[in-house]
């Protein structure tokens, strides 16, 4: 909580309004306050609707499993876009990652599998870099080509390497399936605190799980969420979550990151100051590809035990979308991936909690509206207010949603909330444009 002199100067004479108090917080404090408010709202909605899955540890664990691939895809997009390259090819790089992951995990074990997944994605990333940086191919066209190429390549590779091959512990590969992996990546379950990972409230729960099963307002909700993080936590999940702050730190706190971002904003200016724009683009694309590949590897190795053709299921696009609506920022894409996966997890685990989710999202949007009114952003207020109203009406009128509607719910909710949260999207200024070094000299 540090109000610098510059902030005070910019804000003019101090006004004791809530809006000022909010805008004067540092972004870290805003995130913390936002998270606390979100949690409180969630508890209230859970208490009121009785939809226990809203804060159950199972939902949290499922959310994590579903979020990680999207998160990796989003990070992949972030690395590419920040250096000035539009990466529609994330899906393809993820596909290469699933194959590499399946192959490595089958032959040498899960960690090598993740490494192979990274390499697979990186190959895709380098092809994209070569096409867009060296040959100035339109970024979207190159990206789509990679998606098509990857889908075909993995089928060919599977036909060559997987058909009829046996896994170390049994199981057979085929043209669309790798032999099962050698082992799994260790999962951490703090059993003494959280009870067994697959414990049920019906059978004498203990520890944190006992608290969760009590259904106490706020306390049980907190217990559920904490337990979700402490049980069945794969080391790969921790690695993936860690990549978000690491990416943020590299991009916004290091010299390398500044140069990287400047290449995406104004490459000519950066180059005139001695930044090696092209080299940075290759490096960033290698990282971008590796991230996408990790996302694929996570799918093949952590949430499944083998590569299965088509298992990426368009998550590359979803990751890219969360990154864009997350305003090209790590926190934004983390929020988007979390929201999407949370909705998806609720839908998968229990349809009946979807109305409660609608109420929750309506309340969040209402908060946005209040904040917009305080800042006198009227257009924003109208938009978010209208969206909030829509969700309340849905909650009040719809009691049982059809399966078709609930399967669309994650998309709709994420789109509306992220669009409301980031009213002014600001992509890196030079993203997607061809750049030839020396053009502007």
């Amino acid at each position, binding site marked *: 909580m540090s109000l610098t002199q510059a902030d005070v100067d910019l804000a003019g004479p101090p006004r004791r309004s809530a809006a000022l108090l909010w805008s004067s917080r540092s972004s870290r404090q805003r995130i913390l306050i936002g998270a606390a408010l979100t949690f409180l709202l969630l508890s209230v909605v859970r208490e009121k609707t009785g939809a226990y899955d809203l804060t159950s540890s*199972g939902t949290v664990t499922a959310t994590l499993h579903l979020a990680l691939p999207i998160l990796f895809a989003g990070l992949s997009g972030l690395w590419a876009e920040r250096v000035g390259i539009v990466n529609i090819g994330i899906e393809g790089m993820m596909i290469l990652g699933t194959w590499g992951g399946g192959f490595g995990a089958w032959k040498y074990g899960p960690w090598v599998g993740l490494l192979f997944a990274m390499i697979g994605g990186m190959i895709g990333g380098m092809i994209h870099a070569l096409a867009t940086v060296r040959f100035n191919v339109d970024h979207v066209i190159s990206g789509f080509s990679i998606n098509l190429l990857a889908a075909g390549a993995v089928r060919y590779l599977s036909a060559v390497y997987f058909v009829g091959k046996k896994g170390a512990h049994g*199981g057979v590969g085929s043209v669309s399936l790798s032999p099962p992996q050698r082992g799994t990546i260790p999962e951490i379950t703090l059993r003494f605190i959280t009870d067994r990972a697959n414990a049920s409230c019906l059978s004498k729960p203990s520890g944190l799980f006992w608290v969760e099963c009590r259904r106490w307002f706020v306390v049980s909700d907190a217990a559920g969420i904490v337990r979700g993080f402490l049980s069945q936590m794969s080391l790969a999940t921790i690695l993936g979550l860690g990549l978000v702050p690491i990416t943020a730190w590299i991009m916004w706190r290091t010299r390398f990151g500044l140069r990287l971002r400047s290449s995406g904003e104004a490459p000519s200016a950066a180059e005139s100051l001695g930044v090696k724009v092209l080299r940075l683009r290759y490096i960033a694309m290698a990282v971008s590809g590796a991230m996408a590949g990790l996302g694929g590897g996570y799918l093949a190795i952590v949430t*499944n035990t083998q590569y299965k053709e088509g298992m990426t299921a368009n998550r590359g696009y979803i990751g890219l979308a969360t990154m864009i609506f997350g305003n090209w920022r790590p926190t934004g894409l983390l929020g988007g991936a979390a929201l999407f996966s949370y909705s998806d997890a609720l839908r998968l685990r229990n349809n009946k909690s979807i109305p409660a989710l609608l109420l929750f999202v309506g309340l969040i949007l209402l908060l946005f509206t209040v904040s917009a009114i305080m800042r006198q952003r009227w257009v924003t207020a109208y938009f978010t207010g209208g969206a909030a109203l829509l969700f309340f009406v849905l909650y009040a009128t719809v009691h049982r949603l059809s399966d078709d509607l609930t399967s669309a719910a994650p998309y709709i909710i994420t789109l509306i909330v992220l669009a409301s949260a980031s009213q002014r999207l600001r992509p890196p200024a030079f993203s997607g444009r061809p750049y030839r070094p020396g053009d502007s000299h």
Partner: protein
Amino acid sequence: MRYSKRLRVASLAVVLGLAAAACGSSAKTTSTTATTKGGTATTAATAGSAAGATTAGSTAGGTSSGGTTFGGKLPDCFGNPTGTVTKGSKAGIAYDTGGRGDGTFNDSAARGADAAKTGLGVTIDELEAKTGDDRNPNLTTLSGNGDNPIIAVGFLFETDLLKIAAANPKTMYGIVDDVPPGANANIFSLVFAANEGSFLVGAAAALKSKSGHIGFIGGQDIDLIHNFEAGYDAGAKAVNSKIIIESKYLGAAGDNAAWTSPDKAKEIATGWYTSGADVIYSAAGGSGNGTIDAAVAAGDGKWAIGVDSDQYLTATPAQQKHILTSMVKHVDVATYDTIRAVGQGATKGAVCTFSLANDGVGYATSGGYVDDIKAKLDGYKADIISGKIVVPAK
């Protein structure tokens, strides 16, 4: 100005991507494989030819391969031909995308073809569609080659088959999992009573469930899969009318990702196992593997039921301990029987339903986990065959 144009392009791309993701209308040609099978693809793979036969432990009689017995009584729809198959006569198989080695539907047809080759001495000509555009030329080639019968593997062949069958009235055709519209004098529709097989595994689930709480995971929310669910529900309720049956579909009609999302099936199954369910049947193609993995993670006493082929045969030992049984759909038998019937002189196209009565569907016994209830299951089977029990279709 430039800025807003780029933003427009970016948002267009995102909207397209989202639309693709939401509708599952993926641009990849490979994903049509799953559609072809309409949810009957299995995760398990008996790659190549008749692998798996060694572990099958099949009974004597006829030719056997992959745990299947060939050469039983021909279904009546073939008109009970009385001739004998000429050695060296030619039969054609038009696989859909995926072809031999896809570990699923096409492979099952391939097993039937292989059995016909060894058991009947016919020559098999095979063509695989690399893309949807190959279907018509492949059927044309096989027709011109004098193959008879020609079997199209998958309902996506319907339109092309109708044209080509009309142009070659002397050749007999078969199409798997589809009943083309109109009267087709030279087409055998090879369809499966998945509801009957599902009834038996539903009964097995209810008999084995200790909690009285079971589940069903479907792939796409379409009639083909409703057929599985209806049979499963009926079978479970026949055993225990108060049983709780959870049900969930992975995607809407047309969402091809529904067949390839083992991670999502795993989350659903994990949720149900935790809340007390102990047997879960998935008719969701490759996604079903997630259910098996969830059962493994959930521990002893939690079961998964496989679909389409005997998934026990291709699972890892850890998974095998949790595969109660599988609902088996014998595309191989349908293929073999069509070749045999036409070879024996069948000349009148008809709809052939492969059901419990002609062993076109059934349940797997590998692992021996249903041995103790086999008598009861076979009792239900006899009742269905005799018509005492009518299994709902949806």
